[in-house]
């Protein structure tokens, strides 16, 4: 791939009548999409990073910070973490299937990815329900609850977005509108989904375990 791209650049340099910036020419529509998603993810990572840094500063400044295990179920959320990791695996399997043109396998694995996301959201809803109704926490209760609800809530919104994003392609595939030529769309959707998994890995450590 990269060899072909390099050759392409050289040929543009040789024929000066082609009005293309050599640095720009290797970018195909697919790689523009990928680049765009990466730039979005970098911006999104800054938002999450700022929220986590603010949480760390508040927590270090506050000697009365409760032990998270007092409120949060570690085993329960470890299962949530595992579900997201499994859904990342099914996402890469879906990508590998569509690259090979195996569309029924693609539908199966993309469907499993969506189900994984829904299972995660269901478990998070159960966790929030328990915290709000049984333990009486709200975003106003303490700095602990405020940072907890903001960080996990913002992440939960991202999971919801990812479930919608992936379901769009699942339903399109059901309608027979997906084929091997759409593999790069799935790769880009996968980038978003793995990023959501990656952020949860960090939140699980910083909010639940530490």
């Amino acid at each position: 791939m990269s060899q072909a791209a390099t050759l392409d650049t050289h040929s543009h340099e040789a024929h000066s009548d082609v009005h293309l910036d050599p640095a720009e020419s290797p970018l195909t529509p697919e790689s523009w999409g990928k680049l765009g998603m990466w730039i979005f993810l970098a911006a999104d990572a800054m938002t999450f990073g700022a929220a986590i840094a603010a949480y760390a500063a508040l927590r270090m400044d506050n000697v009365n910070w409760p032990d998270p295990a007092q409120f949060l179920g570690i085993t329960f959320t470890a299962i949530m973490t595992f579900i997201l990791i499994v859904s990342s695996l099914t996402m890469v399997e879906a990508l590998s299937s569509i690259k090979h043109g195996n569309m029924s396998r693609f539908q199966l694995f993309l469907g499993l990815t969506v189900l994984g996301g829904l299972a995660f959201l269901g478990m998070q809803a159960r966790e929030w329900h328990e915290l709000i109704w049984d333990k009486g926490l709200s975003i106003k209760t303490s700095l602990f609850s405020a940072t907890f609800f903001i960080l996990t809530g913002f992440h939960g919104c991202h999971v919801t977005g990812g479930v919608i994003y992936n379901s769009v392609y699942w339903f399109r595939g059901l309608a027979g509108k997906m084929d091997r030529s759409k593999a790069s769309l799935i790769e880009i959707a996968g980038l978003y989904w793995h990023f959501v998994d990656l952020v949860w890995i960090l939140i699980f450590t910083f909010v639940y375990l530490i």
Partner: protein
Amino acid sequence: MSSATTIESAEESSYFAIFIYLSVLTAAELAVYAWFPGVVKIAFLVALAWAKATLVAMYFMHLRFERRTLAIIAFIPVVLVTFLTFMLLPDLTARLWAHADAHQQIAAPSGESSAPATPPPS
């Protein structure tokens, strides 16, 4: 073309191995959480979390097989957030000092004065 195919199959054959690594590292996190004390626990947990995040980015998000430009884009937020954390720390340290000063000033004249403790002038 043949080299591209090899890279692609290497990419795909690693998926399940990466999944196993991620599961094992999650189990390791839970073990560290249960058995390690204080600061050691925090250090190990942070290291394990970054190891997992790196595995996801390198293999599931294919950064290892991409042009370096994408890796640079991905790495910039890590650098900036690290800076941000250290920018927040001096403020934090200053406030902790202010706390310590306030405690000393309240504690020192406690035997003589009945006046309510006032916060130190800022």
